[in-house]
């Protein structure tokens, strides 16, 4: 697996020089492989948003380097705009960035900036709108939509650029459970159909456990731990010390596992947990008889 994005020991402080300012990102080194589905987790103010803004060149690290396809993005003559077409970033509450008269035009903003042909822009807008299920309101004004619908349109605006790396900052914040699920499903669809690398920022493990293959936990601007979902969940106690919790189901399974080691504890929803427990009971029951 080759690394698309690499952060080498990056640090960033807002308002350096003002007494009392602490680094928001503090010596982070990461390697993001092509085609990965990664969740970045951390509690409020841990520096997640600051970190991901380094990946498409919105913030310049005060220390360290960021590499895209092995090239330093802050080297002289590097085309930052081209980088932003390759690394799509959906901001926290992206619905507030809509500005065009129609949804269609707003989604087309990114592709138009890429100077694509008319047909290609048209294809991408329809494609992205289809992805997020915004096909039926392409001709309405984005300001007439509900909050959740606006969110979808804003995400489509980034998807239409068909970035190789898609980064989303809290895409499910403020959505109801069904809206949350829909948001993650569409991200997963994009990941699978385009083979894109996806990084999702969240402060809730519950939301991402099902989808992400790798979890990076950020605490006070530093990487606290980085690994597969089960690996990270094994450190439940340390995670709760830094203000994060693992899904309730998983923590029950982990407790049960202490008494019966063969239990499969990497389940994040009730149905699969029940299946895992049933499997163990069946095995034990058979052995008892």
């Amino acid at each position: 697996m080759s690394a698309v994005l690499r952060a080498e020991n990056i640090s960033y402080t807002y308002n350096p020089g003002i007494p009392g300012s602490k680094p928001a990102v503090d010596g982070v080194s990461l390697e993001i492989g092509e085609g990965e589905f990664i969740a970045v987790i951390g509690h409020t103010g841990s520096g997640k948003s600051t970190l991901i803004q380094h990946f498409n060149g919105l913030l310049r690290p005060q220390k360290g380097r960021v590499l895209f396809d092995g090239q330093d993005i802050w080297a002289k003559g590097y085309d930052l705009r081209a980088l932003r077409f390759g690394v799509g970033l959906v901001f926290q509450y992206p619905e507030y960035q809509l500005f065009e008269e129609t949804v269609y035009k707003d989604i087309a903003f990114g592709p138009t900036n890429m100077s694509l042909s008319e047909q290609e822009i048209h294809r991408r807008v329809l494609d992205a709108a289809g992805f997020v299920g915004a096909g039926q309101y392409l001709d309405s004004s984005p300001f007439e939509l509900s909050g959740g619908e606006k969110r979808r349109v804003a995400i489509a605006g980034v998807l239409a650029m068909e970035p190789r790396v898609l980064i989303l900052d809290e895409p499910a914040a403020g959505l109801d459970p069904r809206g949350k699920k829909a948001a993650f499903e569409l991200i997963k669809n994009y990941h699978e159909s385009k083979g894109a690398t996806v990084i999702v920022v969240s402060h809730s493990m519950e939301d991402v456990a099902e989808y992400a293959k790798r979890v990076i936990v950020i605490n006070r601007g530093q990487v606290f731990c980085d690994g597969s979902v089960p690996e990270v969940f094994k450190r439940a106690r340390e995670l709760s010390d830094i203000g994060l919790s693992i899904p309730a189901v998983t923590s029950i399974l982990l407790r049960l596992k202490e008494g019966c080691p063969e239990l499969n504890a990497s389940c994040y929803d009730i149905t699969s947990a029940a299946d895992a427990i049933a499997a163990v009971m069946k095995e034990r029951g058979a052995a008892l008889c």
Partner: protein
Amino acid sequence: MLKDITIGQYIYGSSPIHRMDPMLKLIFVIAYVVLLFSASTTAGIVGAVAFSLIIYKISGIPIKLIAKSLKPIVPVVVFTAVINMFFIPGDPLITIWKLTISRQGLFYAVILSFRITCLISASSLLTYTTSPIQLTDAIERLLSPLKKLKMPVHELAMMMSIALRFIPSLIEETDKIMSAQKSRGASLDSGKLREKVKALVPVLVPLFVSAFRRADELALAMECRCYRGGEGRTRLHESHFSSVDAFGTAVLVLMFGYVIATNCLFEAVI
């Protein structure tokens, strides 16, 4: 880049200057400016400058911040000083080509630079040690006699404090929207003027939308708390004439006495 704007930047503190009654502070700054421009002897000016240095020392505001607030006016000071230097007639000192610098001109230039510098640092000290809310409160109290003339003083002060309150929020919002549109490939900092203006649309539209949304929400929230203007409204922080205020008044009166005395005793330099 937008974050570097510092309008009315309040530095939290608990020095006597911070604790002084905001309205009195406002009056003192105005009085100090009068003092600065009425001092016409070297001793008087030196005294006024020393006074502002001492006040700064007491306030505990870092010297770096004063330098920062003075930086934008350096060109103005230099320009005024140079113009005055050449155009005030008097005993010639140096002659360059057709321009003559007189002794009086040089003196006047130096004194004028001191006056402008002190004026700016005194007013920045006011904003450094007084929160915007306190300041608008002070303005409201200062202008309250005008209520008799049917001037909507309270409403004006309220508008001012709301505007001040929202400056940082709007700056932050602008920053965020700019980042978001840059992520979609908007080029906000290159190209010709026409393109630049066009590139502002994706930033300005969401900014206006959110400003109006905020205004709506704020109006609703104020209405929910039964806000109906200044009529019969009492204050959360009643101000009392404290010992700090009394001391400050005494010191300022003494300063006036000193300047008047020097003006009478010594020969005026300007």
